[in-house]
């Protein structure tokens, strides 16, 4: 079995982000970049499946600028086998659907039976890419996996929901996004870092992976950002004065928001 893990280069989470006011796009030209934190959980899970003998190859799949190879190599240092980065000027300005079409093609051409995602990217925080890629591929897709087991041609996933944990079984091929509860990602070792340089890191065009650039990029985008605004400052919190019913009021507040 082959696993593709879809990964993304994002701006350093500790740095301040800047939106270009003319394009409404995130300024990706300056500042330090890193592998999206959430993706490490998906990479770790894939490597564990490989170590357990359930998979024979872990391919990192990404779309982004060619320079992103530098950040994504962290995943190779952790233990993934190779990287396929789709980088094409025609893809700039892709919306979620466009990106999903390209990632789906890239994962498919890598021969992936199982496609893994982190739960979201720290820059856009959409959290929809696993579902979108699943739809494009016409495969079963399961989000928010807290655990993942592969048994021959099927997978068993425990999903976190608002009400509890659902156990879901599905046939392969499938697309799964994992939560941060699924594992504790390993630190890459120095040997891993050195070894990663020698692993295949292919930068491909949209056509190379069989994706139609016209269906992606700014031209193919079905959504258009027409404006951006800073969110209004948060209202000050509610103060609860205890008049004997303080605890109940706090309970009600938490229940109303489904926090407990």
């Amino acid at each position, binding site marked *: 079995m082959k696993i593709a893990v879809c990964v993304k280069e994002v701006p350093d989470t500790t740095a301040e982000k800047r939106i270009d006011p003319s394009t409404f796009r995130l300024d990706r030209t300056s500042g330090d970049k890193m592998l999206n934190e959430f993706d490490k959980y998906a990479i770790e899970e894939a490597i564990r499946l490989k170590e357990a003998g359930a998979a024979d190859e872990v391919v990192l799949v990404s779309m982004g600028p060619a320079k992103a190879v530098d950040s994504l190599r962290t995943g190779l240092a952790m233990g993934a086998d190779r990287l396929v980065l789709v980088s094409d000027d025609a893809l700039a300005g892709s919306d979620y659907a466009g990106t999903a079409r390209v990632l789906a093609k890239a994962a498919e051409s890598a021969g992936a039976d199982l496609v893994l995602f982190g739960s979201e990217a720290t820059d856009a925080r959409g959290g929809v890419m696993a579902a979108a890629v699943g739809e494009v591929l016409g495969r079963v897709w399961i989000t928010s996996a807290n655990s993942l087991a592969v048994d021959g041609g099927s997978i068993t996933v425990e999903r976190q929901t608002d009400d509890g944990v659902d156990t879901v079984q599905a046939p392969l091929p499938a697309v799964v996004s994992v939560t941060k509860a699924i594992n504790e990602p390993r630190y890459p070792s*120095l040997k891993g870092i*050195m070894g990663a340089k020698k692993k295949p890191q292919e930068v491909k065009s949209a056509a190379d992976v069989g994706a139609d650039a016209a269906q992606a990029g700014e031209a193919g985008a079905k959504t258009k950002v027409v404006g951006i605004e800073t969110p209004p400052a948060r209202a000050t919190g509610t103060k609860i004065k205890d008049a004997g019913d303080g605890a109940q009021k706090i309970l009600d507040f938490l229940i109303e928001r489904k926090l407990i």
Partner: protein
Amino acid sequence: MTGAPALTGTHREIQALAREFAEGEIAPHAGDWNRDHHVPVDLVRRMGALGLLGITVPEAYGGAGLDYTALCVVMEEIARADAGVSVAVAVQNGLAQQPILHHGSEAQKAEWLPLLAAGELLGAYALTEPDAGSDAAALRTRAEAEGDGGWRISGAKMWITNGGFADVFVVFARTGAGSRGISAFVTRTGPGLVVGKDIPKLGLHTSSTVELTFDGMRVGPEAMLGAPGEGLRVALATLDGGRITIAAQACGIARAALELAVEYAGQRTAFGGPIARFQGVQFPIADVAARLDAARLLTLHAAALRDAGRPHTVEGAKAKLVASRVAVDAADMCVQVLGGYGYSAEFPAERLYRDAKITEIYEGTSEIQRVVIARGLLGDAARG
């Protein structure tokens, strides 16, 4: 701030790994560990699996096969999280491994380096004695020849880092008279070696520092490192490199102090606004920032010379002299900027203040670094 221009892509990746590990596994516990005088030996061993305990050991011996620059980059990141943990890393990669790497026989390298690099064995370096510190040539520990070519070691060693848990000791002992009568040995702990209790210290509470008593400890002929009588040369060559790692440690402590001061100055308000708007707060921060970058460049320069196989005794001494002073001044500045909170054990400032001082003392005091630098300039005239 840490984007030193000398660093290549590989060094930056290693820096990122060390930083992630230090921020994730060390920094969150550093306050508690130091308060409790807990030496996190398990954590140190775990670093072996990441390759952080055999950074300069060639791949053929199970190490990462990297250079001293990489070691310095790692040292700064670990020291920024906790100075005590970082000195364990410095001793393992430096003082314990370098004498074997550079003066050991093929058999000694094959025996020790893979286990040390993996963290399966932890090492210590025993040169200093109760009555011989800066004047290392005055050491009195003896190694007496046995009939079978082995040796019997007797004497006391003082201030031995990692000593409380080390499996392997590089020991310097007298096999004859004078400075040419000292030999180096490498041995596992064993009968005849009595390890003392951790010596209470001003700081560095996560580091084990002990007195060792060699009570006629038997070592075989294969324990001698380098030729008989070459021990002082081995010891000093090792310290030439060790100093650079301590300079990097000092940079890490200084950086922690600087970052804490900057953060605090932006948040603490007095007289109607953040204290960061006072020039009296800004200038000490600016001075430390400039001097820290200078210290780091000196450190990386000395490391680069060592990596290129060029003389680095004087450059290492300069780096340690400057960086250790920056660490002490930065910690002092940090306590001052934090005011009463700086003096509180609830904030890391006072720990940095206590930890920083050691960098001016071990692996050659600042006076000794000046002696080394002066001799480099003045030659025989300096010896009087």
